[in-house]
Protein backbone atom coordinates (compact mmCIF):
# COMPACT_ATOMS: atom_id res chain seq x y z
CA UNK A 1 0.00 0.00 0.00
CA UNK A 2 1.30 3.44 -0.84
CA UNK A 3 2.10 5.89 1.88
CA UNK A 4 -0.67 8.41 2.69
CA UNK A 5 -0.09 12.02 1.66
CA UNK A 6 -1.12 13.37 5.03
CA UNK A 7 -1.63 11.76 8.41
CA UNK A 8 -2.94 13.43 11.52
CA UNK A 9 -2.60 11.68 14.85
CA UNK A 10 -4.30 12.75 18.10
CA UNK A 11 -4.24 16.41 17.21
CA UNK A 12 -5.51 18.73 19.94
CA UNK A 13 -5.74 22.49 20.05
CA UNK A 14 -7.26 24.96 22.47
CA UNK A 15 -7.40 28.73 22.50
CA UNK A 16 -7.07 29.79 26.14
CA UNK A 17 -9.59 27.54 27.91
CA UNK A 18 -11.64 26.71 24.86
CA UNK A 19 -10.94 23.33 23.31
CA UNK A 20 -11.21 23.73 19.55
CA UNK A 21 -9.90 20.35 18.40
CA UNK A 22 -9.67 17.16 20.42
CA UNK A 23 -7.84 13.96 19.46
CA UNK A 24 -8.35 14.39 15.76
CA UNK A 25 -7.18 11.50 13.57
CA UNK A 26 -7.29 11.77 9.83
CA UNK A 27 -5.57 10.09 6.91
CA UNK A 28 -5.59 11.58 3.44
CA UNK A 29 -4.25 9.53 0.54
CA UNK A 30 -2.76 10.98 -2.61
CA UNK A 31 -5.36 12.16 -5.15
CA UNK A 32 -8.05 11.88 -2.51
CA UNK A 33 -10.60 14.60 -1.73
CA UNK A 34 -11.65 14.86 1.90
CA UNK A 35 -14.58 17.11 2.81
CA UNK A 36 -14.93 18.47 6.31
CA UNK A 37 -18.51 19.25 7.25
CA UNK A 38 -20.07 20.46 10.47
CA UNK A 39 -21.59 23.61 11.91
CA UNK A 40 -19.67 26.86 12.28
CA UNK A 41 -17.27 26.72 15.18
CA UNK A 42 -16.89 22.96 14.99
CA UNK A 43 -13.16 23.32 14.26
CA UNK A 44 -12.99 22.78 10.48
CA UNK A 45 -11.17 26.02 9.86
CA UNK A 46 -8.74 25.57 12.72
CA UNK A 47 -7.92 22.06 11.52
CA UNK A 48 -6.94 23.42 8.09
CA UNK A 49 -4.85 26.17 9.68
CA UNK A 50 -3.10 23.59 11.84
CA UNK A 51 -2.21 21.56 8.75
CA UNK A 52 -0.81 24.71 7.12
CA UNK A 53 1.07 25.50 10.37
CA UNK A 54 -0.64 28.86 10.60
CA UNK A 55 -1.82 27.73 14.03
CA UNK A 56 0.49 25.94 16.48
CA UNK A 57 -0.89 22.66 17.74
CA UNK A 58 -0.92 21.74 21.44
CA UNK A 59 -0.70 18.00 21.10
CA UNK A 60 -0.44 15.28 18.48
CA UNK A 61 1.39 15.05 15.22
CA UNK A 62 0.94 15.83 11.54
CA UNK A 63 2.86 13.86 8.91
CA UNK A 64 3.32 14.93 5.33
CA UNK A 65 4.57 12.11 3.10
CA UNK A 66 5.34 10.18 6.26
CA UNK A 67 7.50 12.89 7.79
CA UNK A 68 6.46 14.93 10.79
CA UNK A 69 5.92 18.61 10.05
CA UNK A 70 5.03 19.51 13.61
CA UNK A 71 8.45 19.01 15.21
CA UNK A 72 10.35 22.15 16.07
CA UNK A 73 13.19 21.34 13.67
CA UNK A 74 10.90 21.82 10.67
CA UNK A 75 10.77 25.29 9.13
CA UNK A 76 7.08 26.19 8.64
CA UNK A 77 7.94 28.13 5.49
CA UNK A 78 9.27 24.97 3.84
CA UNK A 79 6.05 23.13 4.65
CA UNK A 80 3.84 25.97 3.44
CA UNK A 81 5.67 25.97 0.14
CA UNK A 82 4.33 22.48 -0.48
CA UNK A 83 0.67 23.19 0.16
CA UNK A 84 -1.83 25.81 -0.86
CA UNK A 85 -4.66 27.19 1.23
CA UNK A 86 -7.63 29.27 0.06
CA UNK A 87 -9.64 31.25 2.56
CA UNK A 88 -13.28 32.20 2.88
CA UNK A 89 -12.53 35.91 2.45
CA UNK A 90 -10.22 35.49 -0.62
CA UNK A 91 -7.49 37.60 1.06
CA UNK A 92 -6.02 38.79 -2.21
CA UNK A 93 -3.45 41.56 -1.84
CA UNK A 94 -5.43 44.69 -2.77
CA UNK A 95 -2.39 46.77 -3.78
CA UNK A 96 -1.25 44.25 -6.37
CA UNK A 97 -2.69 43.33 -9.74
CA UNK A 98 -3.96 39.82 -10.41
CA UNK A 99 -0.64 38.94 -12.05
CA UNK A 100 1.40 40.34 -9.15
CA UNK A 101 -0.74 38.45 -6.66
CA UNK A 102 -0.07 35.21 -8.48
CA UNK A 103 3.64 35.65 -9.17
CA UNK A 104 4.69 37.04 -5.76
CA UNK A 105 5.34 33.72 -4.06
CA UNK A 106 6.84 31.84 -7.05
CA UNK A 107 9.33 34.66 -7.64
CA UNK A 108 10.18 35.67 -4.07
CA UNK A 109 9.91 32.34 -2.30
CA UNK A 110 10.44 29.62 -4.88
CA UNK A 111 13.11 31.41 -6.87
CA UNK A 112 11.30 30.96 -10.16
CA UNK A 113 12.38 33.47 -12.80
CA UNK A 114 9.91 36.29 -13.42
CA UNK A 115 9.47 35.21 -17.01
CA UNK A 116 8.67 31.65 -16.03
CA UNK A 117 6.30 32.78 -13.25
CA UNK A 118 4.42 35.10 -15.61
CA UNK A 119 4.10 32.35 -18.20
CA UNK A 120 2.77 29.97 -15.60
CA UNK A 121 0.31 32.60 -14.30
CA UNK A 122 -0.95 33.26 -17.83
CA UNK A 123 -1.46 29.58 -18.40
CA UNK A 124 -3.48 29.19 -15.19
CA UNK A 125 -5.53 32.33 -15.85
CA UNK A 126 -6.32 31.01 -19.32
CA UNK A 127 -7.33 27.67 -17.92
CA UNK A 128 -9.75 29.29 -15.46
CA UNK A 129 -11.16 31.80 -17.93
CA UNK A 130 -9.60 34.87 -16.32
CA UNK A 131 -7.03 35.74 -18.97
CA UNK A 132 -8.42 39.23 -19.59
CA UNK A 133 -8.27 40.10 -15.87
CA UNK A 134 -4.50 39.72 -15.64
CA UNK A 135 -3.77 43.41 -15.04
CA UNK A 136 -6.85 44.24 -12.97
CA UNK A 137 -6.75 45.05 -9.27
CA UNK A 138 -8.78 42.74 -7.01
CA UNK A 139 -11.41 45.36 -6.17
CA UNK A 140 -12.42 45.42 -9.83
CA UNK A 141 -13.33 41.72 -9.80
CA UNK A 142 -16.48 39.96 -8.66
CA UNK A 143 -16.31 37.76 -5.56
CA UNK A 144 -16.26 34.62 -7.67
CA UNK A 145 -13.45 35.95 -9.85
CA UNK A 146 -11.46 37.03 -6.78
CA UNK A 147 -11.83 33.59 -5.27
CA UNK A 148 -10.72 31.92 -8.49
CA UNK A 149 -7.66 34.18 -8.53
CA UNK A 150 -6.98 33.15 -4.93
CA UNK A 151 -7.11 29.49 -6.02
CA UNK A 152 -4.74 30.22 -8.90
CA UNK A 153 -2.41 32.08 -6.54
CA UNK A 154 -2.16 28.92 -4.44
CA UNK A 155 -1.80 26.66 -7.46
CA UNK A 156 1.03 28.80 -8.80
CA UNK A 157 3.34 27.44 -6.11
CA UNK A 158 2.64 23.95 -7.51
CA UNK A 159 1.38 22.49 -4.24
CA UNK A 160 1.16 18.80 -3.46
CA UNK A 161 -1.91 19.39 -1.35
CA UNK A 162 -4.67 22.01 -1.45
CA UNK A 163 -6.70 23.18 1.52
CA UNK A 164 -10.01 25.00 1.04
CA UNK A 165 -11.54 26.85 3.96
CA UNK A 166 -15.23 27.47 3.23
CA UNK A 167 -14.26 29.13 0.01
CA UNK A 168 -17.82 29.74 -1.17
CA UNK A 169 -19.33 31.02 2.08
CA UNK A 170 -18.71 34.68 1.28
CA UNK A 171 -20.04 34.47 -2.27
CA UNK A 172 -23.38 35.40 -3.79
CA UNK A 173 -25.28 32.19 -4.60
CA UNK A 174 -24.91 32.57 -8.36
CA UNK A 175 -21.12 32.82 -8.00
CA UNK A 176 -20.76 29.68 -5.91
CA UNK A 177 -20.94 27.31 -8.89
CA UNK A 178 -17.96 28.84 -10.71
CA UNK A 179 -15.70 28.33 -7.71
CA UNK A 180 -16.95 24.82 -7.01
CA UNK A 181 -16.38 24.09 -10.69
CA UNK A 182 -12.72 24.97 -10.21
CA UNK A 183 -12.38 22.51 -7.33
CA UNK A 184 -14.09 19.79 -9.38
CA UNK A 185 -11.62 20.48 -12.16
CA UNK A 186 -8.73 20.04 -9.74
CA UNK A 187 -10.14 16.72 -8.59
CA UNK A 188 -10.16 15.51 -12.17
CA UNK A 189 -6.50 16.48 -12.45
CA UNK A 190 -5.78 14.33 -9.42
CA UNK A 191 -5.06 17.04 -6.84
CA UNK A 192 -5.11 15.95 -3.21
CA UNK A 193 -7.51 18.24 -1.36
CA UNK A 194 -9.07 18.87 2.01
CA UNK A 195 -12.20 20.96 1.67
CA UNK A 196 -14.11 22.49 4.58
CA UNK A 197 -17.54 23.32 3.21
CA UNK A 198 -21.20 24.00 3.89
CA UNK A 199 -22.12 22.89 0.36
CA UNK A 200 -23.43 19.41 1.13
CA UNK A 201 -24.47 18.59 -2.41
CA UNK A 202 -20.96 19.38 -3.55
CA UNK A 203 -19.40 17.33 -0.76
CA UNK A 204 -21.57 14.35 -1.67
CA UNK A 205 -20.52 14.55 -5.34
CA UNK A 206 -16.84 15.25 -5.00
CA UNK A 207 -15.59 13.77 -1.75
CA UNK A 208 -13.92 10.41 -1.44
CA UNK A 209 -14.21 10.75 2.29
CA UNK A 210 -16.45 12.96 4.43
CA UNK A 211 -15.65 13.91 8.01
CA UNK A 212 -18.32 15.30 10.28
CA UNK A 213 -16.84 17.56 12.95
CA UNK A 214 -18.74 18.45 16.07
CA UNK A 215 -17.29 20.52 18.90
CA UNK A 216 -13.72 19.82 17.85
CA UNK A 217 -14.10 16.08 17.43
CA UNK A 218 -14.36 14.07 14.23
CA UNK A 219 -17.57 12.37 15.19
CA UNK A 220 -17.96 10.33 12.07
CA UNK A 221 -16.12 9.74 8.85
CA UNK A 222 -16.62 7.60 5.81
CA UNK A 223 -17.74 7.50 2.22
CA UNK A 224 -20.18 10.29 1.33
CA UNK A 225 -22.88 7.80 0.48
CA UNK A 226 -22.73 6.34 3.97
CA UNK A 227 -22.53 9.68 5.83
CA UNK A 228 -25.29 11.37 3.88
CA UNK A 229 -27.74 8.46 3.79
CA UNK A 230 -27.09 6.33 6.88
CA UNK A 231 -25.04 8.21 9.44
CA UNK A 232 -24.29 6.23 12.60
CA UNK A 233 -24.30 9.15 15.00
CA UNK A 234 -27.54 10.86 16.09
CA UNK A 235 -25.69 14.21 16.08
CA UNK A 236 -24.78 13.74 12.40
CA UNK A 237 -28.36 12.85 11.58
CA UNK A 238 -29.58 15.97 13.41
CA UNK A 239 -27.08 18.19 11.56
CA UNK A 240 -28.04 16.79 8.16
CA UNK A 241 -31.73 17.01 9.05
CA UNK A 242 -31.35 20.75 9.64
CA UNK A 243 -29.50 21.16 6.36
CA UNK A 244 -32.28 19.34 4.52
CA UNK A 245 -34.92 21.47 6.25
CA UNK A 246 -33.05 24.59 5.16
CA UNK A 247 -33.26 23.28 1.61
CA UNK A 248 -29.51 23.05 1.21
CA UNK A 249 -29.28 19.36 0.34
Amino acid at each position, binding site marked *: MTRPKLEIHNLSKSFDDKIVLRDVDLTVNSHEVVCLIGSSGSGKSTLLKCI*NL*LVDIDDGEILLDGESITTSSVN*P*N*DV*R*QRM*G*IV*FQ*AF*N*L*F*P*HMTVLENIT*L*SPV*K*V*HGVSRQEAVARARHLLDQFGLAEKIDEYP*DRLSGGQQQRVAVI*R*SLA*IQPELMLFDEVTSALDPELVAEVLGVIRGLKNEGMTMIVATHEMGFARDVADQVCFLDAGVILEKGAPKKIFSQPDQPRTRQFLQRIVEAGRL
Partner: protein
Amino acid sequence: MRRGPQQLWPRRTKRRREEGSRGALIAAGSTIIVFGLILWVVLTSAAWPEVQRQFFSWKHFKESFPKVLGGFWLDIQMFIIAEILILTFSLVLAMIRSLRGPAFFPLRAIVITYIDLIRGIPILLLILLMGFGIPALQLQGVPKSEMFWGVTALVISYSAYTAEVYRAGIDSVHESQRMSARSLGLTQTQALRYVIVPQAIRNVIPALLNGFVSLQKDVALVFVLGVREGLREAEIYKAGTFNYTSYVVAAMLFLAISVPVARFTDWYTERDRRRRQVMST
Protein backbone atom coordinates in the same frame (compact mmCIF):
# COMPACT_ATOMS: atom_id res chain seq x y z
CA MET B 1 -22.72 57.25 -15.01
CA ARG B 2 -22.35 60.42 -12.98
CA ARG B 3 -25.11 62.13 -14.89
CA GLY B 4 -27.59 59.45 -13.89
CA PRO B 5 -29.06 61.01 -10.76
CA GLN B 6 -29.52 64.35 -12.48
CA GLN B 7 -31.67 62.76 -15.12
CA LEU B 8 -33.66 60.93 -12.53
CA TRP B 9 -34.27 63.93 -10.30
CA PRO B 10 -33.73 67.03 -12.39
CA ARG B 11 -35.85 69.29 -10.21
CA ARG B 12 -34.13 68.34 -7.01
CA THR B 13 -30.72 68.95 -8.55
CA LYS B 14 -31.76 72.35 -9.86
CA ARG B 15 -33.08 73.40 -6.48
CA ARG B 16 -29.89 72.19 -4.86
CA ARG B 17 -27.84 74.25 -7.26
CA GLU B 18 -29.87 77.36 -6.45
CA GLU B 19 -29.39 76.72 -2.76
CA GLY B 20 -25.67 76.26 -3.43
CA SER B 21 -25.23 79.63 -5.11
CA ARG B 22 -27.30 81.34 -2.45
CA GLY B 23 -25.09 79.68 0.18
CA ALA B 24 -21.95 80.98 -1.47
CA LEU B 25 -23.40 84.51 -1.50
CA ILE B 26 -24.24 84.35 2.20
CA ALA B 27 -20.76 82.98 3.02
CA ALA B 28 -19.07 85.77 1.05
CA GLY B 29 -21.26 88.45 2.63
CA SER B 30 -20.73 87.32 6.21
CA THR B 31 -17.00 86.89 5.63
CA ILE B 32 -16.67 90.48 4.39
CA ILE B 33 -18.65 91.79 7.34
CA VAL B 34 -16.75 89.81 10.01
CA PHE B 35 -13.26 90.46 8.67
CA GLY B 36 -14.13 94.06 7.87
CA LEU B 37 -15.17 94.59 11.47
CA ILE B 38 -12.00 93.01 12.85
CA LEU B 39 -9.82 95.08 10.51
CA TRP B 40 -11.69 98.26 11.43
CA VAL B 41 -11.27 97.62 15.18
CA VAL B 42 -7.54 96.92 14.76
CA LEU B 43 -6.73 99.78 12.42
CA THR B 44 -8.63 102.43 14.39
CA SER B 45 -7.24 101.41 17.78
CA ALA B 46 -4.88 103.84 19.48
CA ALA B 47 -2.01 101.32 19.59
CA TRP B 48 -2.07 100.51 15.86
CA PRO B 49 0.54 103.03 14.64
CA GLU B 50 2.99 101.72 17.21
CA VAL B 51 2.23 98.08 16.34
CA GLN B 52 2.64 98.82 12.66
CA ARG B 53 6.01 100.47 13.23
CA GLN B 54 7.28 97.54 15.31
CA PHE B 55 5.97 94.60 13.29
CA PHE B 56 4.86 95.73 9.85
CA SER B 57 7.35 98.35 8.78
CA TRP B 58 7.73 98.34 4.98
CA LYS B 59 11.26 99.70 5.20
CA HIS B 60 12.45 96.95 7.54
CA PHE B 61 10.52 94.38 5.55
CA LYS B 62 12.43 95.25 2.39
CA GLU B 63 15.76 95.33 4.17
CA SER B 64 15.43 92.10 6.14
CA PHE B 65 13.68 90.01 3.50
CA PRO B 66 16.71 88.91 1.43
CA LYS B 67 18.69 87.97 4.54
CA VAL B 68 15.87 85.99 6.14
CA LEU B 69 15.07 84.33 2.81
CA GLY B 70 18.72 83.28 2.47
CA GLY B 71 18.59 81.68 5.90
CA PHE B 72 15.23 80.13 5.17
CA TRP B 73 16.73 78.29 2.21
CA LEU B 74 18.92 76.48 4.74
CA ASP B 75 15.77 75.58 6.71
CA ILE B 76 14.32 73.98 3.60
CA GLN B 77 17.50 72.01 2.94
CA MET B 78 17.64 70.76 6.51
CA PHE B 79 13.95 69.88 6.31
CA ILE B 80 14.33 67.82 3.16
CA ILE B 81 17.38 65.91 4.37
CA ALA B 82 15.85 65.28 7.80
CA GLU B 83 12.50 64.18 6.36
CA ILE B 84 14.08 61.61 4.04
CA LEU B 85 16.13 60.17 6.90
CA ILE B 86 13.13 60.17 9.24
CA LEU B 87 10.84 58.38 6.78
CA THR B 88 13.41 55.65 6.21
CA PHE B 89 14.71 55.19 9.73
CA SER B 90 11.29 55.18 11.38
CA LEU B 91 9.99 52.62 8.90
CA VAL B 92 12.82 50.29 9.89
CA LEU B 93 11.94 50.88 13.56
CA ALA B 94 8.27 50.15 12.96
CA MET B 95 9.04 46.98 11.01
CA ILE B 96 11.29 45.67 13.75
CA ARG B 97 8.62 46.46 16.30
CA SER B 98 6.02 44.42 14.45
CA LEU B 99 8.15 41.30 14.04
CA ARG B 100 6.64 38.40 15.94
CA GLY B 101 8.12 35.48 17.80
CA PRO B 102 10.39 35.14 20.84
CA ALA B 103 13.59 35.23 18.75
CA PHE B 104 13.00 38.89 17.95
CA PHE B 105 12.36 39.91 21.56
CA PRO B 106 15.70 41.72 22.10
CA LEU B 107 15.28 43.74 18.91
CA ARG B 108 11.71 44.65 19.82
CA ALA B 109 12.78 45.63 23.34
CA ILE B 110 15.51 47.94 22.01
CA VAL B 111 13.09 49.67 19.65
CA ILE B 112 10.37 50.08 22.28
CA THR B 113 12.87 51.51 24.78
CA TYR B 114 14.18 53.90 22.15
CA ILE B 115 10.70 55.12 21.23
CA ASP B 116 9.64 55.53 24.87
CA LEU B 117 12.77 57.39 25.91
CA ILE B 118 13.01 59.72 22.95
CA ARG B 119 9.34 60.64 23.01
CA GLY B 120 9.76 61.59 26.65
CA ILE B 121 12.52 64.14 26.01
CA PRO B 122 11.61 67.68 24.89
CA ILE B 123 12.92 68.12 21.37
CA LEU B 124 14.66 71.41 22.23
CA LEU B 125 16.51 69.71 25.06
CA LEU B 126 17.72 66.98 22.72
CA ILE B 127 18.93 69.58 20.20
CA LEU B 128 20.87 71.45 22.90
CA LEU B 129 22.24 68.25 24.38
CA MET B 130 23.53 66.89 21.09
CA GLY B 131 24.29 70.15 19.28
CA PHE B 132 26.49 71.57 22.05
CA GLY B 133 27.35 68.40 23.93
CA ILE B 134 28.79 66.15 21.25
CA PRO B 135 31.07 68.70 19.52
CA ALA B 136 32.36 69.66 22.99
CA LEU B 137 33.69 66.13 23.42
CA GLN B 138 36.25 66.89 20.69
CA LEU B 139 36.27 63.26 19.62
CA GLN B 140 38.40 62.22 16.70
CA GLY B 141 36.45 61.62 13.52
CA VAL B 142 33.16 62.90 14.94
CA PRO B 143 31.66 65.87 13.08
CA LYS B 144 31.93 69.13 14.98
CA SER B 145 29.23 70.99 13.06
CA GLU B 146 26.36 72.16 15.28
CA MET B 147 24.05 71.95 12.32
CA PHE B 148 24.94 68.31 11.74
CA TRP B 149 24.07 67.40 15.31
CA GLY B 150 21.01 69.64 15.34
CA VAL B 151 19.58 67.85 12.31
CA THR B 152 20.59 64.49 13.81
CA ALA B 153 18.66 65.37 16.97
CA LEU B 154 15.61 66.21 14.86
CA VAL B 155 15.89 62.92 13.01
CA ILE B 156 16.25 60.95 16.24
CA SER B 157 13.29 62.65 17.87
CA TYR B 158 10.95 62.68 14.89
CA SER B 159 11.74 59.06 14.01
CA ALA B 160 10.35 57.93 17.35
CA TYR B 161 7.02 59.61 16.61
CA THR B 162 6.93 58.62 12.97
CA ALA B 163 7.67 54.99 13.85
CA GLU B 164 4.46 55.02 15.88
CA VAL B 165 2.57 56.41 12.90
CA TYR B 166 3.89 53.60 10.71
CA ARG B 167 3.07 51.07 13.40
CA ALA B 168 -0.53 52.25 13.51
CA GLY B 169 -0.58 51.74 9.75
CA ILE B 170 0.87 48.25 10.02
CA ASP B 171 -1.69 47.36 12.69
CA SER B 172 -4.48 48.71 10.48
CA VAL B 173 -3.79 46.08 7.82
CA HIS B 174 -6.04 43.13 8.53
CA GLU B 175 -4.46 40.07 10.12
CA SER B 176 -5.79 37.92 7.26
CA GLN B 177 -3.35 39.65 4.90
CA ARG B 178 -0.39 38.54 7.00
CA MET B 179 -1.84 35.04 7.29
CA SER B 180 -2.42 34.87 3.58
CA ALA B 181 1.14 35.97 2.85
CA ARG B 182 2.59 33.47 5.32
CA SER B 183 0.44 30.69 3.85
CA LEU B 184 2.16 31.30 0.51
CA GLY B 185 5.47 30.56 2.17
CA LEU B 186 6.66 34.15 2.58
CA THR B 187 8.84 34.79 5.63
CA GLN B 188 7.83 37.39 8.21
CA THR B 189 10.04 40.05 6.69
CA GLN B 190 8.92 39.24 3.16
CA ALA B 191 5.28 39.44 4.27
CA LEU B 192 5.95 42.82 5.87
CA ARG B 193 7.90 44.14 2.92
CA TYR B 194 5.72 43.04 0.03
CA VAL B 195 2.26 42.78 1.57
CA ILE B 196 1.80 44.65 4.86
CA VAL B 197 3.98 47.76 4.58
CA PRO B 198 2.79 48.94 1.14
CA GLN B 199 -0.79 48.85 2.40
CA ALA B 200 0.20 50.38 5.74
CA ILE B 201 1.92 53.35 4.13
CA ARG B 202 -1.12 54.10 2.01
CA ASN B 203 -3.21 54.11 5.18
CA VAL B 204 -1.03 56.61 7.02
CA ILE B 205 -0.09 59.08 4.28
CA PRO B 206 -2.30 61.83 5.83
CA ALA B 207 -0.66 61.34 9.21
CA LEU B 208 2.81 61.41 7.62
CA LEU B 209 1.95 64.64 5.80
CA ASN B 210 0.92 66.10 9.14
CA GLY B 211 4.40 65.27 10.38
CA PHE B 212 5.84 67.14 7.37
CA VAL B 213 4.09 70.35 8.44
CA SER B 214 5.32 69.93 11.97
CA LEU B 215 8.94 69.21 11.04
CA GLN B 216 9.04 72.04 8.53
CA LYS B 217 8.60 74.46 11.43
CA ASP B 218 10.67 72.58 13.97
CA VAL B 219 13.85 72.76 11.89
CA ALA B 220 13.94 76.40 13.02
CA LEU B 221 14.74 75.11 16.51
CA VAL B 222 18.36 74.56 15.51
CA PHE B 223 18.69 78.37 15.68
CA VAL B 224 19.49 77.86 19.38
CA LEU B 225 22.76 76.31 18.25
CA GLY B 226 23.67 79.44 16.34
CA VAL B 227 22.99 77.93 12.93
CA ARG B 228 22.27 80.81 10.57
CA GLU B 229 18.94 79.64 9.25
CA GLY B 230 15.86 81.83 8.71
CA LEU B 231 14.90 82.48 12.29
CA ARG B 232 18.52 83.18 13.27
CA GLU B 233 18.86 85.73 10.47
CA ALA B 234 15.64 87.40 11.63
CA GLU B 235 16.97 87.46 15.17
CA ILE B 236 20.25 89.02 14.03
CA TYR B 237 18.39 91.69 12.09
CA LYS B 238 16.18 92.44 15.08
CA ALA B 239 19.18 92.74 17.37
CA GLY B 240 20.64 95.40 15.10
CA THR B 241 17.49 97.46 14.57
CA PHE B 242 15.23 96.78 17.56
CA ASN B 243 12.44 96.19 15.04
CA TYR B 244 10.43 92.98 14.92
CA THR B 245 9.41 93.10 11.27
CA SER B 246 12.09 90.54 10.43
CA TYR B 247 10.31 88.02 12.67
CA VAL B 248 7.12 88.64 10.72
CA VAL B 249 9.08 88.02 7.52
CA ALA B 250 10.31 84.69 8.89
CA ALA B 251 6.78 83.77 9.97
CA MET B 252 5.46 84.54 6.49
CA LEU B 253 8.10 82.35 4.87
CA PHE B 254 7.25 79.40 7.11
CA LEU B 255 3.55 79.94 6.42
CA ALA B 256 4.19 80.03 2.69
CA ILE B 257 5.27 76.40 2.92
CA SER B 258 3.16 74.98 5.71
CA VAL B 259 -0.26 76.30 4.64
CA PRO B 260 -0.14 74.73 1.16
CA VAL B 261 1.08 71.44 2.65
CA ALA B 262 -1.77 71.53 5.18
CA ARG B 263 -4.32 72.22 2.42
CA PHE B 264 -2.83 69.42 0.33
CA THR B 265 -3.09 67.03 3.30
CA ASP B 266 -6.77 67.87 3.71
CA TRP B 267 -7.42 67.46 0.02
CA TYR B 268 -5.60 64.14 -0.09
CA THR B 269 -7.31 62.80 3.04
CA GLU B 270 -10.72 63.71 1.67
CA ARG B 271 -10.01 62.12 -1.70
CA ASP B 272 -8.72 58.98 -0.01
CA ARG B 273 -11.84 58.79 2.20
CA ARG B 274 -14.13 59.08 -0.84
CA ARG B 275 -12.21 56.39 -2.69
CA ARG B 276 -12.55 54.00 0.19
CA GLN B 277 -16.28 54.67 0.35
CA VAL B 278 -16.59 53.90 -3.34
CA MET B 279 -14.56 50.72 -2.85
CA SER B 280 -16.66 49.49 0.05
CA THR B 281 -19.97 49.88 -1.81
